[in-house]
């Protein structure tokens, strides 16, 4: 588009609100595509991953040496390698038929749910922000601050049963919300880009927590190890299915959060505003919706959700604050939201899948010797397969509009 043709409208466009949501076509399509695309991406990634497992397998390499003499050997070796790896992953993630008791047999599934809990919560934080047009890359930092605050309330305060856990949950949500609010306020005030802000705040959060873990207030008495005291029993999520499983009530919190976000986005006035801001900020503003307020609200919400992921970690799985308490959940959450197409229940199931990958990957490595990094490869392939089609389409559209800028295609469709 040359500036010339924009000129007649230009004076009217100058004073548009300074901060605008960043949802260009390709990105929006990547984040809001159909569920079928997500499923196909998973299948394609698993197939390619299987191929990779097969091609790096010792037995396959061996049979490849005489491939032309007996090709069947290599093919069956490849099948055996890939299928046994995935089988092991399934055993580790869903159901272990070799277990002696029912408990042992379903143990893998409970592990998957345990690992999925922070992924779902943080994933919702990313998804909800995207619905308002913001790329929240900062779930990691929000999760960490939430975890730190929740942990402190958990080990330093003494409160009755029930109240204490509630206080921990609120503290975690507040911590994340605070970290998110900084982003929302800065973007609303100055128009700074949320991607930059969240990335920078991730570093601040990481180093802040590392610093806290050198202060006596956050350390176990007499120890200089960067590990906080254990949270009080009253501050922790009870186990969901008994003591032999790690699965805790934090998972129920994740389900509740999903239900809440689904209601919020589709059935509440706030969600209506947020989605309008995300899909067309100019029209939202013209309709009397405050776009800047929307940015702050959604970042507070997103941060609170990621903060809850931190609560699930310290009050559920890890039981104490360490520098590594967030693992890479905050970053994996981005992929989870992407795979879930920024829809609440989509994110929920994507979180389960990623939880299964994590839980199953360990078993796969120990049972078949397949490197656990293959799981990372599969996860990355999923992202690639989801991101690729919209990018290709955009490339094609661009090429077409370069040639023609003929709006005839759209004109035609609308006739």
């Amino acid at each position, binding site marked *: *588009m*040359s*500036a*010339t*043709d924009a*000129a*007649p*409208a*230009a*004076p*009217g466009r*100058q*004073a548009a609100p300074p901060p605008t949501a960043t949802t260009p076509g390709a990105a929006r399509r990547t984040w*809001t595509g159909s569920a079928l695309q997500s499923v196909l991406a998973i299948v394609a990634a698993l197939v390619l991953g299987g191929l990779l497992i097969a091609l790096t397998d010792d037995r396959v390499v061996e049979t490849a040496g005489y491939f032309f003499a007996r090709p069947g050997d290599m093919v069956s070796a490849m099948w055996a390698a890939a299928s046994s790896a995935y089988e092991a992953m399934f055993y580790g993630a869903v159901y272990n038929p070799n277990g002696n008791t029912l408990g042992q047999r379903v143990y893998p599934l409970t592990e998957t749910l345990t690992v999925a809990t922070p992924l779902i919560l943080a994933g919702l934080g990313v998804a909800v922000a995207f619905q308002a047009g913001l790329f929240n890359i900062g779930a990691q930092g929000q999760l960490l601050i939430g975890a730190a605050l929740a942990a402190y309330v958990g080990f330093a305060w003494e409160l009755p049963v029930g109240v204490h856990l509630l206080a921990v949950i609120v503290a975690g949500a507040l911590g994340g919300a605070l970290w998110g609010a900084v982003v929302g306020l800065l973007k609303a005030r100055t128009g700074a880009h949320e991607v930059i802000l969240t990335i920078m705040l991730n570093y601040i959060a990481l180093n802040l927590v590392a610093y806290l873990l050198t202060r006596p207030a956050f350390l176990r008495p007499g120890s200089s190890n960067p590990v906080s005291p254990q949270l009080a029993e009253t501050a922790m999520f009870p186990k969901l299915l008994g003591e032999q499983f790690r699965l805790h009530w934090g998972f129920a919190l994740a389900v509740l959060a999903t239900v809440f976000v689904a209601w919020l986005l589709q*059935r*509440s*006035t*706030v969600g*209506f*505003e947020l*989605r*309008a801001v995300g*899909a*067309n900020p*100019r*029209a*939202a*503003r*013209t*309709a*009397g*919706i*405050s776009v800047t307020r929307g940015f702050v609200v959604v970042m507070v919400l997103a941060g609170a959700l990621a903060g809850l992921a931190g609560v699930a970690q310290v009050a559920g799985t890890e039981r104490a604050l360490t520098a590594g308490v967030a693992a890479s959940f905050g970053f994996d959450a981005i992929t989870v939201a992407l795979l879930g197409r920024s829809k609440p229940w989509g994110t929920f199931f994507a979180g389960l899948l990623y939880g299964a990958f994590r839980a199953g990957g360990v078993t796969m490595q120990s049972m078949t010797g397949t490197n656990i990094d293959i799981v990372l490869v599969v996860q990355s392939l999923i992202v690639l397969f989801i991101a690729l089609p919209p990018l290709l389409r955009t490339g094609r559209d661009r090429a077409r509009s370069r*040639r*023609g*800028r*003929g*709006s*005839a*295609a759209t*004109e*035609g*469709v*609308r*006739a």
Partner: protein
Amino acid sequence: MRLELQSITKRFGSFTANEDIDLVVEPGQIHCLLGENGAGKSTLMNVLYGLYRPTEGRILVDGSEVSFKGPGDAMAAGIGMVHQHFMLVPVFTVAENVALGAESTRGGALDLETTRRRIREISHRYGFHVDPDAVVEDLPVGVQQRVEIIKALVREAEVLILDEPTAVLTPKETDELLRIMRELRESGKSILFISHKLREVKEVSDVITVIRRGRVVGQTSPEASTSELAALMVGRDVSLTVAKDEAEPGECALDVSGLTVVGDNGVKLLDDVSFQVARGEILAVAGVQGNGQTELAEAILGLRERATGSVRLAGKELLGRSVRQVLDAGVGFVPEDRSTDGLVGPFTVSENLVLDLYGDDRFSRGPSLRRGEIAANARRAVEQFDVRTPSIDAPVQTLSGGNQQKVVIARELSRPLELLVASQPTRGVDVGSIEFIHEQIVAERDKGVPVLIVSTELDEVYALADRIAVFFHGRIMGVVGPGTPRDVLGQMMAGATAEEVLGGAQRHGHPHGTGHGATDPQDPNPQDPNPQDTKEQA
């Protein structure tokens, strides 16, 4: 050159944009392609220009079949196109723009002298008055358009395609363009003129081909009456004038005084604008696009931060309030660009119908939306405004432009109003829907609502206005009656005050000499840098 299209069909998937179209352009002929928005005119032109391949059919140049792989082939065959949006590099000079893509070089260095000479020749021959060394961004829109025509002529075009060329022009510039088109015809060039503006089409065409829904529905001569042409275009009889009674203005409702809007670059986009609108009266704001009308509408709604002065509605000050507060004060607002400002494309029809009403008690209770009420409201509005949509849950972006506009209008008229502000209420809307929308606006006036219409289409201004305010460079040139002749409005739109025009003044330059227009780099119509142009106006 004789150009012939034989049974051209163009499909996009299952959608047929053009079906079995036959068209012959004889040498030295102005052939008009008339059709509503979305009728398939642009698709056909893009086929002709090599941007699309026809699904079926043949293109013949001087009797022999040609096949265009791209615009390059079309240009080589002598077809030139002037797009609706200009394809010019603003910071380049006219000569550089013309040379771009077909540069002649001498020893590796750019040879602009040849191009300059050609531009002067062409400019002189057709009376273009274009200086090859002027920088394009300094030129008025009308002159930029001539640069586009020169580009085609330098490449030896024998057939020129002009795609909605008058959309961006003042009436004065339009007349100038029509004159140039006639000159080109005299010299044997053929012109394919795409338009939906009946008046211009009748004035300049030799042959008129009307297309509707991708098919040729008739060929006629310019002697056909305007209503015949409109009926052909729409497929049924339409009334081009809105039946409306004399206005019965009540007390003054909207009082704008000293309204000044400053742009981000410090330039005044609206300069000390004052006017009043009474209850039960339609005030139409006329002017070429980009002369402050958009800013006026936006300032009233509260979308402009740097606005000073006063906008009082029934005595209450609106300026300085939030958009929400202004809407709550009873202002209905139809933005000029529905897709960017009026609708959220991926939202459903029913959601868009409550886009600025969702907080109303009717549609929400506490933090929850009342989805049943929202759906009921949508069914009612779709029925009442005849919105053609597959379902109230269809994304609004899948609707045609006219139906999208009906959604906006339906929403804004679905509550009791104290003021209706509508910018370009029928832009890109088919003739049939224009009639309907105009009726709704007049009905609103008859309820006693003050109405402010902003329109760059004089036909629309005449159809609706009880009084007309003409804007130029952010100022009001005068407020005149609805019977004011077209040429008077045209001169006012080019910068003459009402007194000057009606008083028979000779000069129509900038009457105020504040210079703000000339210093505004964004201004599409700066004070004519081309002295010859000004002379012609007299």
